[in-house]
C-alpha cells in the first residue's frame, strides 16, 4: 500500500485544522475561554459567505473581504456584551454560555436555511490539482489553505513574540489585573483578541466550506477537530497547534487508506493515545488553571 499519498494529503488537511484551531487557541490563551460555539461560528461564516456570493454574484474569496471583517465585528461585540460577563474564577459560565450560543446558532441556521448540505464553489480552482513526483496529486486549494495557515500562524507568533501589542497580550494572559495598572483596560485586549479569532474563523469557515460540504450542524464536528489539534499540540502554543493539526490530519487520511469508513475514528484514536501518554501535548507547556 502506498502511504506517501495519504501522508501528504493528511499534512495538507492539517493546514485546514490548524487554521481553524488557531482562533480557538488564541481565545483560550488570552482569556482562558473555551469557546464551544467556535465551530458553529465557522459554519455561520460559511453561510454568510454563501449569501454574499449569491446576492452579489462574486467569488467566495471576494466575499471573504466582507464576511471576515463582519465576523470580527461580531466577535468584538459578542465579547464586550456577553462573553466578558462570563469571565471569572470558574470556567463554567463561559462553557455554559458558549454551549448555549452553539445551540442558538444551529437552530437559527436551520430556521432561516435548511438542513441540506451546502458547498462553496471556487469555479475550477477547488478541484484543480498539480502532480508531484511519485505520481502524487495535490489539490491546489488544500495546498493554498496549508500555506495560508503557515503564513497566518507565522504572523500571529511574530506579533506575540516581538511587538508591543504581543507583549500586552502575553501580559494580559498572565495577569489582567496588573495590566489594568499599566494603563490598559484588559477588556479591550479581550475584545480585540476575540475579533481576531472571529476573523480567523471566517477564513476557516470558507476553507471548510470549499473543501467539504456543510450543514447547520457541521460546527460540532469542526469544533472537535480543532480541539483535538489544540490538545495534541499543547495548549497555548501556536506552532504546537500546527503540529497537532498535521498529526490529526495524517491520522485521518492514513486511517482512511486502511478503512475508508473509519477516517474520523482513526483521528480520535490517535487523540486518545496522546491524552493517555502525552497529556500536555507536543510542546509540554504547563498551563495555569
Amino acid at each position, binding site marked *: 500500500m502506498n502511504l506517501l499519498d495519504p501522508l501528504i494529503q493528511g499534512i495538507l488537511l492539517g493546514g485546514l485544522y490548524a487554521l481553524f484551531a488557531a482562533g480557538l487557541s488564541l481565545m483560550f490563551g488570552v482569556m482562558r475561554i473555551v469557546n464551544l460555539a467556535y465551530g458553529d461560528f465557522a459554519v455561520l461564516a460559511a453561510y454568510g459567505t454563501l449569501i454574499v456570493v449569491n446576492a452579489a454574484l462574486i467569488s467566495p474569496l471576494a466575499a471573504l473581504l466582507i464576511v471576515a471583517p463582519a465576523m470580527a465585528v461580531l466577535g468584538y461585540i459578542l465579547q464586550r456584551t456577553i462573553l466578558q460577563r462570563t469571565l471569572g474564577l470558574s470556567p463554567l459560565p463561559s462553557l455554559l454560555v458558549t454551549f448555549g450560543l452553539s445551540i442558538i446558532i444551529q437552530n437559527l441556521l436551520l430556521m432561516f436555511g435548511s438542513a441540506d448540505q451546502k458547498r462553496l464553489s471556487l469555479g475550477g480552482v477547488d478541484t484543480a490539482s498539480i502532480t508531484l513526483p511519485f505520481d502524487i496529486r495535490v489539490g491546489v486549494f488544500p495546498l493554498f489553505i496549508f500555506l495560508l495557515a503557515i503564513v497566518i500562524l507565522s504572523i500571529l507568533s511574530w506579533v506575540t513574540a516581538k511587538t*508591543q501589542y504581543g*507583549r*500586552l497580550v*502575553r*501580559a494580559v494572559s*498572565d*495577569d489582567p*489585573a*496588573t*495590566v*489594568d*495598572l*499599566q*494603563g*490598559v*483596560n484588559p477588556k479591550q485586549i479581550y475584545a480585540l483578541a476575540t475579533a481576531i479569532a472571529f476573523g480567523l474563523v471566517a477564513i476557516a469557515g470558507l476553507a471548510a466550506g470549499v473543501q467539504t460540504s456543510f450543514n447547520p450542524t457541521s460546527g460540532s464536528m469542526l469544533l472537535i477537530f480543532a480541539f483535538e489539534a489544540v490538545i495534541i499540540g499543547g495548549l497555548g502554543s501556536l506552532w504546537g497547534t500546527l503540529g497537532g493539526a498535521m498529526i490529526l490530519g495524517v491520522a485521518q487520511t492514513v486511517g482512511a487508506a486502511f478503512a475508508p469508513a473509519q477516517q474520523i475514528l482513526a483521528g480520535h484514536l490517535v487523540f486518545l493515545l496522546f491524552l493517555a501518554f502525552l497529556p500536555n501535548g507536543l510542546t509540554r507547556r504547563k498551563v495555569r488553571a
Partner: protein
Amino acid sequence: MSSAPLLETQNLGRKFGQLQVLSDFDLRVEAGEVLGIIGPNGAGKSTLLSVIGGSVGASTGRILLDNEDITRTSASWRARHGIATSYQIPRPFLEMTVLENLLVASTFAANARGKKAEDLAIGAMKSVGLEGYANNPASSLRLLDRKRLEVARALAANPRILLLDEIAGGLTESEVPELVDLIRHVSASGVTVIWIEHVVHALTAVATRLICLTYGRILAEGEPQAVLNSPEVRSVYLGLDPDGENEAESFVKNRPSEVQKEPNTHA
C-alpha cells in the same frame, strides 16, 4: 488664595464590609513633595495608596488631580495620567523577561513608542540595578529582585506621582541608603512621591513631610522629626513613653532594618 495642589482627597472613605478602613480622609499633596506615611499595621496605609492608584474604589469622598475630579476613573486611566504604584507584593508578568515587563509599562502607561519606550524601560532597569537580568524571565528573580522590578515598573511608567508601598522592607542595612538615593534622585527629577514605609529612617532621610495614620485617620502630620517626636506618634506607633526626651530619634536611628520574612506569594 493658594493654587490647587497636584493631588487632593476630600472626605475620602473606604469600607470593606462593615470595616471602615479609611474615613473622612483629607489630604493635599503639592507638586514636588516627598510625603512619607507611617502608621501601625492595619491603619489603612495600603488602602489609601490603592484608592489613589485606582485599583480599589472609594466608598465616599473625592480624589482630585490638578483640581479635576478623578474619583470615578479606572486604574488604567490613572496609570496613563501619571499615577504609578509600586505595590508591597510584587506581581510581575512571570513568563516575560525583566525588560519586557518594563516595556509594557513604558509603552502603555507612559505612552512612549519605539526607542523612547526602550530608553524609559532601560533607564528604570538601571536605576534599580537590574540591568544584569534584562533578558531573564521575571519568574527566575528572587523576591528582593522582584521588589526591585516592581519599583522599576512604576518608574518606567514615567509618573508625575509615584506611590510606593513598603519598598524598603527586606533590604539589608547597606541597601537602604541606595534606595534613599534613588528616591531622592527621582524626586529631584520633578516626580511627586508618596511613600509608605516601616523602615522609618529611610523615610526621614528623604521625606519633606510625614503623616502618621491610625484607624484610617491622620494622627499627626508635619515636619518628619516633629511628627516622630509628637506624644501621640510616640505612644501609638513607636510604642514609647509619650513624655520621654529624644528617645524617638535614637529609636529610629538604632532600629534594625527589619529584615522581614515575607511569604513568597509566587511560590
